[in-house]
């Protein structure tokens, strides 16, 4: 403030400026009358008047020189200064209220921002913990799935190996069985031949018996031989039948063996496939757990991020307090500047170098209100000078919250 430079002043000035032109003139008049009476006491009656008149003129002249720029009486100056000093208290009260409003605005916004930032931090920590847990669980599921995949691989490899071995074995067995079956079948004509020989031998034995009977007693030995041949023939026939049946039974047994081998192969494959199916089901169960978990995780992440985003948006909104404070401080700065100018003029008045300021401090205060933009400024001003507080802050007086009084009318209005 430029006005502060002029504050120190010589004490004699205050004494000197108390005398006006009239005071000086009258003093000179008295001095002249006393001098005339002392010198010409017999004629003082009329000459003293001349002296007094001259003294008055000289007094006026001297008074004019003693207080060169006379812009009013000292009483007027005193009156002006006294009035302004009284109003100055109100001016400071107005400024104090404006500063209080600025402080409240700052504190409210900063506390709000800090609260939001703390909440953002907490939410970020929670999201981080969830992500770490999700990564841990994913790693576990991944390891489990890899393990299951390995088991599947082993099962499939085992199945393939088994299949290959079985196929080789089966081919070998088939060849062997086929060879045995062929060999067995080759025996069938032999059995038939034996049967035919037996039949021919039997006919021969019958013929021999007939011829032995015709030879009489000489043929008795031959008859015994014929009977023995017939018995052998019967036995041979029975043997041939048994061989034929045996071949049939062997062929049937081979067929049964091949069927059984095929069934065994089927059972083994079914077992291996069952194992794989069980593993796949297990994997499916795991995935069944993963899908809702991922859904839940996604929901939590979305809601967490929504809260964080809203807090960041509102924190950015809280930064608007800076614009409000800037305007409040600009007004305070302007008021202080006008105060400085005003008291420079008052100082010049005291110094006798200037007339009283064109605007008294009281009016200056009322002019400050013309520059107010915010309702809170008007409320602060009214409170400071003890005037009626404008709505809506009047309703909120108990809380003394000027920040809330920033708005006049609805905060959001669509036309």
């Amino acid at each position, binding site marked *: 403030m430029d006005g502060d430079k002029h504050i120190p002043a010589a004490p004699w000035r205050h004494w000197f400026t108390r005398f006006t032109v009239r005071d000086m003139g009258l003093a000179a008049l008295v001095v002249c009358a006393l001098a005339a009476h002392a010198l010409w006491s017999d004629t003082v009656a009329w000459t003293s008047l001349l002296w007094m008149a001259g003294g008055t003129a000289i007094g006026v002249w001297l008074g004019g020189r003693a207080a060169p720029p006379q812009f009013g009486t000292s009483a007027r100056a005193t009156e002006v200064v006294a009035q302004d000093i009284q109003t100055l208290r109100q001016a400071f009260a107005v400024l104090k209220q404006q500063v209080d409003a600025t402080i409240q605005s700052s504190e409210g916004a900063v506390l709000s921002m800090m609260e939001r930032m703390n909440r953002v931090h907490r939410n970020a920590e929670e999201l981080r913990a969830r992500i770490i847990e999700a990564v841990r669980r994913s790693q576990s599921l991944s390891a489990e799935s890899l393990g299951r995949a390995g088991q599947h691989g082993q099962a499939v490899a085992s199945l393939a190996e088994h299949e290959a071995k079985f196929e080789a074995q089966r081919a070998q067995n088939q060849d062997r069985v086929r060879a045995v079956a062929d060999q067995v079948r080759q025996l069938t004509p032999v059995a038939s031949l034996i049967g035919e020989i037996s039949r021919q031998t039997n006919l021969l034995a019958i013929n021999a018996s007939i011829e032995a009977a015709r030879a009489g007693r000489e043929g008795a030995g031959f008859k015994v031989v014929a009977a023995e041949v017939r018995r052998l023939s019967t036995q041979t026939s029975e043997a041939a039948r048994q061989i034929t049946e045996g071949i049939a039974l062997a062929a049937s047994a081979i067929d049964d063996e091949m069927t059984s081998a095929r069934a065994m192969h089927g059972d083994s494959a079914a077992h291996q496939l069952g194992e794989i199916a069980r593993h796949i089901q297990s994997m499916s169960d795991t995935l069944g757990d993963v899908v809702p978990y991922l859904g839940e995780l996604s929901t939590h992440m979305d809601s967490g991020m929504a809260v964080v985003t809203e807090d960041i948006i509102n924190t950015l*909104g809280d930064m608007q307090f800076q614009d409000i404070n800037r305007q409040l401080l600009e007004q305070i700065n302007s008021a202080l500047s006008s105060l400085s100018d005003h008291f420079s003029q008052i100082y010049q008045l005291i110094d006798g170098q200037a007339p009283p300021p064109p605007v008294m401090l009281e009016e200056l205060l009322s002019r400050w209100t013309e520059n107010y*933009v915010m309702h809170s400024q008007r409320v602060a001003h009214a409170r400071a000078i003890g005037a009626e507080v404008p709505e809506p802050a009047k309703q909120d007086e108990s809380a003394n919250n000027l920040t809330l009084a920033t708005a006049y009318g609805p905060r959001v209005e669509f036309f």
Partner: protein
Amino acid sequence: MKSVFLVDDSATMLMSLKGTLEISGFKVETAPDGEAALGKLKAGLRPDLIITDINMPKLDGIGLIREARKLLRFTPILALTTESQQAKREEAKKIGATGWLVKPVGGADLVKVIKQVIPGA
């Protein structure tokens, strides 16, 4: 993506509002006073919404709304200000402003208001 044109002589306000709106999915253009804003509009800028301060140097918000309305007949224009004089509010309404918001406006509240005035936002 809807676009918003912000006009304010406070750098803090522009930063605050720009951040809020960009996070919320809007494309944002800014100007530091009414004169610069009018220059951009005359150069062909066609935002979906204009948000302007009222007390600004060079050309104030009332002047900007008056001139902008000649160029953009149907574009919504919101005043966002600390100005509390009812007369200014009435004047803004008379010259074609869409609405009047008193600073400070919470970020989430501002986004709600914008979604109300921009069709399809």
